[in-house]
């Protein structure tokens, strides 16, 4: 019922709809940023938690174009830099994740959502940690053996955890964007 009333309230007001849509999008990014500082019990494996920003980028890019994916990847990458340290930057890894996820064009081949999103997140987590490891290798202030040993550990743990938690971010957001899209088309 509540959803219906929201629908009707937003249907005739494109501007309000626009702002509400952006507020929800922005709020979910903020939530992901803040959660990434937390390590809740059951949410960590060997001290490593899920990569929430990566999950968000995957959720965003799955049904969008390559450019939209890349842009959001860069923005969220800069935000993650702000939370840790600017060098090496996370912008490359998340931008690549956005591009690749959009290029998969999942909805064309698979209708099913639950497992495919988890699988995509799993792969993208490995990709993003690998991009980070390559950047560290070029930076040259750690030994290569150390970097790539550590990469194995975090790529695997982060991929497992991120893929398991991905639906929590993906489903509500996807539902929201879908509804907003429908409203857009109706009006």
């Amino acid at each position, binding site marked *: 019922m509540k959803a219906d009333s929201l629908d009707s309230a937003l249907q005739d007001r494109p501007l309000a709809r626009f702002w509400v849509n*952006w507020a929800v999008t922005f709020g979910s990014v903020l939530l992901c940023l*803040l959660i990434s500082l937390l390590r809740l019990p059951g949410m960590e494996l060997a001290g490593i938690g899920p990569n929430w920003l990566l999950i968000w980028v995957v959720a965003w890019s799955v049904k969008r174009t390559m450019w939209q994916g890349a*842009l959001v990847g860069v923005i969220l990458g800069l935000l*993650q830099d*702000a939370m*840790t340290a*600017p060098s090496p930057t996370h912008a490359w890894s998340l931008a690549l994740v956005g591009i690749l996820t959009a290029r998969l064009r999942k909805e064309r081949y698979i209708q099913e959502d639950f497992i495919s999103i988890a699988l995509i997140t799993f792969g993208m987590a490995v990709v993003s940690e690998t991009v980070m490891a390559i950047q560290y290798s070029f930076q040259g202030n750690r030994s290569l053996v150390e970097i790539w040993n550590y990469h194995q*550990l*975090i790529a695997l743990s982060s991929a497992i955890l991120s893929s398991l938690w991905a639906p929590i971010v993906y489903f509500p957001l996807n539902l929201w964007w879908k509804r907003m899209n429908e409203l857009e088309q109706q009006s």
Partner: protein
Amino acid sequence: MFTLHRWWNRYRFQTLLVGVALGSAVLIRQTNGALLFEVYHLVAGVFRPNPVQENLLSNAQLQELQLRLTELEQQNQRLRDLVGFQSQSKQEGLLASIIGRSADHWWQQVTLGRGSNDGVQIGSVVTAPGGLVGRITHVTPTTSRVLLLSDPTSRVGVLLSRSRSMGYIRGQASNRAVLEFFEKGPDVRKGDVVVSSALSQLFPAGLPVGRVESVNLNKSPAPEAIIELSAPISSLEWVVIQPPRLSVQPEENSDQPQDAGQKAEPQL
């Protein structure tokens, strides 16, 4: 020109939004996410227990040990006075709770619930029950970020308290670190206590760091030992931020053999 105009009319809003989003992301990054950490502090504050209620020193044995330590420190101070040593009156540190961990997996950082409003400064040394933990790298009004000893970029000049062999440690995630010795044949055994050395510019001398877990004397270019950090970094909830006077200890003597403190500067 017409197509450009049409494009602008159609996508003007999106373009502006993307510009704003990119701009604010860059701004947040330039300010090291100060705004985000403030918001986090605000939100996390709802779930945090009151620091006054937390009684860290409830253990009776711990209290006894501390009393004995105070007694010994005072004796030490009196002996130093006798030999004319410059007195160093003890200053209380600032108790801070850990409100967040690192936001990605490559950095070993924690976020503390105290900031510049409480007098925390960049470079302040952070300790915990057990020993040295790390150093403050960023400060916002109510939070501060600590680069942990277990981070690979954090390097500290140390020595073995038994044999005085010197070296520096390099973090290795979790609660391990690698000690690289300066000399070829160091006198080191499993179980030796590692403390920060007087050569370190960023950390005060004599703070406990950890214990030697295993030794590899054949390692090239320098012998190495694996150190188990004595502070339980992965399960810490409270730490003590040392007062700045104790934290920064510039060495005037420039003809030191090799200053590990210089290496300790994290490359951020």
